[in-house]
């Protein structure tokens, strides 16, 4: 398949996924349990991406205490929990990683 065709179809597919419930909801009513479930979507989906991402170093799962990403992640979680500040959290997580990479080699 041509690169541009693949790209156009990939874009359509992604867009259809994002539009799905937004478009359909006009026609159907949402059950109460489904509405309750939706509150947990951001926390659940993003956490399922975060935790493996902290362990994964260039495609290899590194569970050792020398993995600087794990410690930087813990620092970022603590900063986020107490400060509730997005910019401070990202900056602290990145700074921690740069320092720990040097320390843990």
């Amino acid at each position, binding site marked *: *398949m041509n*690169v541009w*065709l*693949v*790209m*156009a*179809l*990939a*874009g359509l597919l*992604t*867009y259809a*996924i*994002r*539009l*799905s*419930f*937004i*478009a359909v909801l*006009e026609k159907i009513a949402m059950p109460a*349990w*489904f509405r*309750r*479930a*939706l*509150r*947990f*979507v*951001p*926390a*659940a*989906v*993003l*956490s*399922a*991406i*975060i*935790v*493996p*991402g902290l*362990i*994964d*170093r*260039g495609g290899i*799962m590194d569970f050792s205490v020398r993995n600087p*990403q794990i410690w*930087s*992640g813990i620092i*970022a*979680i603590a900063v*986020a*929990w107490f400060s509730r*500040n*997005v*910019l401070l*959290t*990202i*900056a602290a*997580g*990145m700074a921690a*990683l740069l320092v720990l990479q040097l320390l843990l080699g």
Partner: protein
Amino acid sequence: MSPSTRGQEFWGGVRDESPILLGVVPFGLIFGALAISSGLSAAAAQAMSSIVFAGSAQFIAAQLLGADSSGIVILMVVFVVNLRHALYSASVAPHVRALRPGWKMLLAYLLTDEAYAVMITHYNDKGPAQNRHWYALGAGLTLWTSWQVSTAVGIFIGAQIPRGWPLGFVLPITFIALVVPALRDAASVSAAVIAGALGLLAAGLPYKTGIIAAALVGILVGMLVEGRTK
């Protein structure tokens, strides 16, 4: 509190999305560079950022295109990697129900991880509910613009991005900044912890298929905890 004007909502969205760019811009730079080194043309790499507009899926698609994988395989991978956005769509849907079709189509296009997390926090806030779609538009456009510009810069500077930069780490840190401040009760903390732990267990599954399963179990646990504490 008096209702917010369109302008106040729009610029509110721009303001709240801005800190996220610290995590998004390096990701866009590296995408641009990686797409070129995978063999995509500059035009195709840039077009992918506006046509597909989904960070993780773009990384995988660019590498697969570079490796001459079959189109069907690439489309299946993009579908699986982006399936989590259906959950975002469901969660935003009740808030945009009354909007005109044009608005719905526009906001659906802008429904990326990083814009969704910011807009849903605002939609779930108490207070006057007028013009919140303008906030969503402000957040979405801020992310869109920075993604296009950082892709372009990445294409341009390409190989000059240091190899040792831990690319995979930018995304989890950005998501921590988005998720953790929104954890306000035992139910949402339980949902996050369970989904995170299961996400790790399922990390061996190809193309992030484990994310959806882990998230669904996390959502279920969140509902159970909520049921017990009420």
